[in-house]
C-alpha cells in the first residue's frame, strides 16, 4: 500500500509540468487577445487621460514579464484577480458557476454512458450485423451535429412548438428559487433539503441541455466500448471462461466488460474534456449560468483575468479528472503501475 501511495505521489508530480505549461499558455493566450481592456472599461465617453488612469489601475502599463510574475505570485496566493466584466473576484465567479457547468456536464456524460455503453456492448456481441451498423450510424449521426444546432432545434421543437420542455432559462424556471447552497448541484441540494418540487424543476431544466451534450458524447463512448469489448470478447481469457462453462452473464460482465471498462475509463476522461468545450456553446444556447457562458462574455470583452481564470480552471479540472481516472484505474486494474 505505501507503494501505491508513492505511485500516487509520482502521478501527482507528473502533473506539475502540465500545470506549469497551462499557466504559461493561459497567460500568453489572454495577453494576445485583441482590444485594450483599458479602453473598454474606461467607459463610453472616456478620454485619453481616463483611459491611461484605467490602464494604470489595471497594471497594464507594466512589462509583460512583470505582469506574468505578478500573475503567478497572485495565483500562488489563490488570487485569480478581479473580473473586469462583472467586477467580482474571478475565483468567486468560477466557484459559483462551476457547479452549474459540472452538473450539466456530468448529467450529459451520465446520459451518454447510459445509452452508449449498452449500445456498444450490443454492437460488440454482434459485430458486422445490421444492429452493429445501425448503432454505428446512430451514434455517428449524434456526433456529426453542431451542438448549438441540436440545442436550438430541441428548444424549437420541445419548448416552442410542443411546450413539453420548460423555458430554456438556465437552471431553474423563473418562479423557482435555488435550494440552499450545499454542493452547488441543484439536484443534490434540493434532495438534501427534501424539496422534491425544486428537484423536479431543476431536472426538467437539465433534460434538454444534458441531452444535447450527451448526444455529442455518444459516439466516442460507444465506439470505444465496442472496440474494447470486441477485443475482450476475442481474448484468450474469455475463451478460457467459456471453455469452463461459465454463464453467459458472467463471461460478458465479469470477464469481458470489466476488462473492457479500463480503456473505456480513459476514454471517458477525454470525452469529459470534449464536453467541457462543447459546454461553452450549450450554455450559451440554454442561458445556463455556468463558466462557459462567463467565458464567452469575458472573451468578447478581453477580460484578461476572467479568461485566464476560466482557461486555467478548465485545464486544471481536466488534469484533476484525469488524475482521478488514473487513481481509479489503479484501484480496478492491478497491473497499472503508475510508473509510466
Amino acid at each position, binding site marked *: 500500500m505505501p507503494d501505491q501511495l508513492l505511485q500516487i505521489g509520482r502521478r501527482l508530480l507528473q502533473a506539475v*509540468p502540465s500545470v506549469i505549461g497551462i499557466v504559461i499558455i493561459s497567460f500568453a493566450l489572454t495577453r494576445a487577445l485583441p482590444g485594450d481592456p483599458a479602453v473598454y472599461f474606461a467607459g463610453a465617453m472616456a478620454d485619453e487621460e481616463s483611459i491611461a488612469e484605467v490602464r494604470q489601475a489595471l497594471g497594464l502599463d507594466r512589462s509583460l514579464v512583470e505582469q506574468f510574475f505578478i500573475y503567478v505570485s497572485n495565483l500562488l496566493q489563490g488570487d485569480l484577480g478581479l473580473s473586469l466584466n462583472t467586477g467580482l473576484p474571478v475565483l468567486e465567479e468560477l466557484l459559483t458557476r462551476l457547479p452549474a457547468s459540472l452538473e450539466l456536464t456530468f448529467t450529459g456524460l451520465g446520459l451518454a454512458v447510459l445509452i452508449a455503453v449498452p449500445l456498444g456492448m450490443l454492437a460488440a456481441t454482434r459485430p458486422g450485423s445490421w444492429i452493429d*451498423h445501425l448503432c454505428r450510424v446512430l451514434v455517428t449521426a449524434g456526433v456529426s451535429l453542431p451542438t*448549438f444546432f441540436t440545442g*436550438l432545434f430541441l428548444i424549437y421543437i420541445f419548448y416552442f412548438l410542443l411546450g413539453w420542455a420548460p423555458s430554456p432559462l438556465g437552471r431553474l424556471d423563473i418562479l423557482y428559487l435555488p435550494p440552499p447552497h450545499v454542493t452547488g448541484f441543484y439536484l443534490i441540494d434540493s434532495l438534501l433539503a427534501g424539496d422534491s418540487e425544486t428537484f423536479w424543476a431543476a431536472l426538467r431544466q437539465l433534460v434538454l441541455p444534458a441531452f444535447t451534450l450527451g448526444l455529442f458524447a455518444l459516439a466516442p463512448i460507444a465506439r470505444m466500448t465496442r472496440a474494447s469489448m470486441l477485443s475482450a470478447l476475442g481474448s484468450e481469457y474469455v475463451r478460457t471462461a467459456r471453455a469452463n462453462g461459465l454463464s453467459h452473464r458472467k463471461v460478458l460482465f465479469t470477464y469481458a466488460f470489466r476488462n473492457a471498462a479500463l480503456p473505456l475509463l480513459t476514454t471517458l476522461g477525454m470525452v469529459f*474534456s*470534449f464536453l467541457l468545450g*462543447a459546454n461553452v456553446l450549450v450554455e450559451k444556447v440554454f442561458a445556463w449560468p455556468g463558466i462557459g457562458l462567463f467565458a*464567452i462574455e469575458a472573451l*468578447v470583452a478581453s477580460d484578461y483575468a476572467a479568461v485566464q481564470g476560466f482557461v486555467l480552471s478548465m*485545464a486544471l479540472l481536466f488534469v484533476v479528472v484525469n488524475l482521478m481516472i488514473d487513481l481509479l484505474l489503479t484501484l480496478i486494474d492491478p497491473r497499472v503501475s503508475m510508473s509510466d
Partner: protein
Amino acid sequence: MKRFLNHFFYVMSENPVTVFAFSLFILIILTALFGPWLAPYDPLATQAANALQPPSLQHWFGTDHLGRDVFSRVIVATRLDLGIALSAVALSFFIGSALGSAAGFWGGWTDRIIGRLSDTIMAFPLFVLAMGIVSALGNSVENIIYATAIINLPFYARVARAETNVRRNAGYVMAARLSGSSDLRILATQVFPNCLPPMMVQISLNMGWAILNAAGLSFIGLGVRPPDAEWGIMVAEGATYIVSGEWWLALFPGAALMLAVFCFNLIGDGLRDLVDPLRRT
C-alpha cells in the same frame, strides 16, 4: 491497380455503411470541385426584395435575410469547408505525427518534452483553446485552420508515439539497422508508413471535428468572415431564425454540414482497411 480495386471492393462489400460513406465522400469532393458551376445563382448576390423566401421551385432551399439563394450558398460552401478541414488536418497530421514518431522512436528526452507539451495542450478543452487562439489571432480562415490544427496536434502525436513505440524494436527495424539505414531513414521508411492505418481513423474523425469546430466558432462570432459562404456560419446565422419560423436557413446548411461530418466520421474505418497491407491478399 487491379489488385487495389479488388481490395477496394472487398473492403466495401464487407461493410455497407462504408459504401455509403464513400459514395457520400465522392459526392462531396465533386461538389467541392465543381460547386461554382453547379450553383444556379451567384451565392453572393443579394436581392433584398426577395429576402427570407421559403423553399420553392426557384430557390430549392429558400433565400436568406439578404435574398441570397441558400442552395447555391450551400453548394459553394463545400469547397471552403473541405478546404478548412483538409488543411487543418494535414497541418496537424504532418507536425503531430512527426513529433509523435520522434518521441516514440527516440524516447528519453525527446519523448518527455514532446509528451509534456502535448499533455499541456490536451489539458485544455479543445473548443476553449480554439476559441482563445482565434480570438487572439483574429478571425480569418487561416487562423481558424491554425487553431484547429493546434488543438488536434496532440492526438496525432499520441497515436504516432504509441504506434512507433510498438514498432521501434520490431524485427524489420533491426533488420533495417543491419542494412545500414540511419535512424531517420528507418523512421521515415520503415516505421512511419506502418503507423498510418490507425492514423487514418484519426484523420477522418478530425476532418469532421474541424468542420464542427469552425461551425462552433462561427456561432460565437469567431468564424469565417462574410460574405463567404461556409456551412457553420450559415447554420449559426440561421439558428437565430429558427424560432421565427425561417427554418430553412439553418436546416439545409446544417444538413450539409452533418452529412459531411457524418461521412468523415464513418469513412475512417474504411480508409484504415484500405491502407492496411495486411488486409490485402
